[in-house]
């Protein structure tokens, strides 16, 4: 038993420096997850019928596939990718692997902004992503101010506590708004829990651009992100404008988290677990980490959403609740290992 374990470990160690291998694994995983998610549901599409359902308009499942399943898969992919990259960015900004847009209130800030837009200006759907971005940015600014106030380098505990405080404030604001506008609950109830239920191509179109721009800019900044992992003094010593880099990365994280929140609501933990798992596979270099977080986040969210649809069928569970159920214990585990 221990020998088998040792062998597995050895194979793992060997594969650690093979980012191309893991990228391949994740691409295959993403495609498989997308196909699986398109197949299962109230009307199951068997695998051998899948190509014809996809391409043949006369197939009975063609309409279902293109108007319900595929947009949902696409939305899941973009939201998951955005959250995975946003998580990696936030972890670089606070230089700590326990950072996460969901845990640290950035998603809650974006959610609060989006919620305000939904209840106050229900006709202006454009306002949802705009206010979501503003809310996410406000939340991450508050977090950075609380964690770095006084000029001291923040330890993990202080960062977590700052994030928890920011999140607590925002959740109470969200609760207030949902209480005051309880009559409009149908418009936002799935938004506040976090779910991909009923997403169509319209919503996908809404987030494609911010996700591509945000991830693209993040991928262009990998050198600065790598230097941010050093202590501030060393990073500044080799010529990085530390404060500017941190603010820029925070804005990108807020943009991505807000894009995700504006269509899927409060989905947490993807941003926490994906970068951590990917880092175990390929190490901390952002040139490799970010693209794999993109793939990994998309894969994880599609799989989790599929599970949420299937587990209590015919009821569709909100994927946000399911992820919190997995992510909470994982977060405790990371904390325990980190602070032990």
């Amino acid at each position, binding site marked *: 038993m221990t020998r088998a374990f040792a062998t597995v470990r050895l194979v793992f160690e060997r594969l650690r420096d093979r980012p191309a291998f893991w990228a391949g694994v994740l691409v295959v995983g993403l495609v498989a997850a997308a196909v699986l998610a398109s197949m299962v549901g109230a009307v199951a599409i068997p695998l051998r019928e899948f190509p014809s359902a996809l391409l043949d308009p006369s197939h009975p499942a063609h309409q279902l596939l293109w108007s319900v399943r595929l947009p949902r898969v696409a939305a899941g992919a973009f939201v998951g990718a955005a959250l995975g990259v946003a998580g990696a960015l936030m972890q670089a900004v606070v*230089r700590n692997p326990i950072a996460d847009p969901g845990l640290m209130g950035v998603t809650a800030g974006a959610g609060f902004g989006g919620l305000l837009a939904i209840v106050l200006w229900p006709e202006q759907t454009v306002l949802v992503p705009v206010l979501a971005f503003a809310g996410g940015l406000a939340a991450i600014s508050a977090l950075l101010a609380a964690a770095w106030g*006084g*000029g*001291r380098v923040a330890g993990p505990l202080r960062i977590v506590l700052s994030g928890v405080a920011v999140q607590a404030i925002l959740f109470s604001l969200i609760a207030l708004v949902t209480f005051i506008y309880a009559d409009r609950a149908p418009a936002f109830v799935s938004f506040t829990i976090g779910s991909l239920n009923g997403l169509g191509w319209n919503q996908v179109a809404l987030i494609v651009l911010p996700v591509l721009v945000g991830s693209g800019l993040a991928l*262009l900044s990998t*050198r600065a992100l*790598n*230097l941010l*992992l*050093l*202590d501030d*003094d*060393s990073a*500044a*010593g*080799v*010529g*990085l*404008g*530390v404060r500017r880099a941190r603010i820029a990365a925070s804005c990108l994280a807020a943009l991505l988290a807000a894009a995700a929140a504006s269509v899927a609501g409060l989905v947490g933990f993807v941003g926490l677990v994906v970068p951590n798992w990917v*880092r175990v596979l390929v*190490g*901390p*270099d952002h040139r490799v980490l970010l693209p794999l977080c993109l793939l990994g986040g998309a894969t994880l969210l599609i799989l989790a959403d599929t599970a949420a649809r299937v587990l209590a069928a015919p009821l569709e569970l909100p994927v946000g609740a399911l992820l919190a159920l997995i992510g909470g214990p994982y977060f405790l585990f990371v904390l325990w290992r980190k602070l032990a």
Partner: protein
Amino acid sequence: MSDVALALEGVHTRHPLAERDALRDLSLSVQRGEILALVGPNGSGKSTALATLGRSLAPRLGAVLLDGGDALTLPPRAFARRVARLPQSPICPEGITVSELVHGGRHSHRGFLQPLRDVDLAAAREAMRATDVLDLRHRRMETLSGGERRRAWLSMVLCQESPLLLLDEPTAALDLRHQRELLSLLRRLNAERQVTIVVVIHDLEQAAWIAHRVAVLHRGRLYAVGTPADALREDTLRDVFGVEARVTSDDDGLAVRVLGPCDPLRFL
């Protein structure tokens, strides 16, 4: 050897959250091409002075001048091309290799999105050879010993190829041989490439061995500055460090022998 490369003028520096200034009206100039050692007891401000020179800490009052111009308003990359510094206890993430760390030192020489060029790789290789970590370049930092890690960091700083080098206790955590190797390397950089070096160092004999001039700091002020023999006199050691010591000098360098026990309650 006469023009000033870097200078503090009437500097008051306070650490964040501290209630008193760690440097009080300190003026100190670093001559181009020299090795200047900053020595002093704990809390004398020597590390703070180095941090102020290297812009890690902004002075509350006073000026930092680089080649006569204001150093505090230079953009980070421009400053890094001219001044490289090694903090006392730098931190790097788990999982990065020595060569990845060292390549980080080329940041200020590369444009945005510019990949590592041959000159960058050559500079990194040269720096790793000089600090004897070339064989360790594929190892991850957390698998190295304290001294190896220290040399890897120094390698990153050297790879910056700045004409001015600020080092905070570079020999701490090194064994006797690597201490002497590192100091020899600094002397060689200084002699062959005219690199100006400011080094904070605890060991007075090492300071005397490496430096052209020694600056003794005491309670945030400059107590004495001059050649090692001038700055490290027996009465200076008594006043600043509070020890009775015999200082002897011969061809091998300066020797400091502390005499007798030292009673911590003597000053009460």
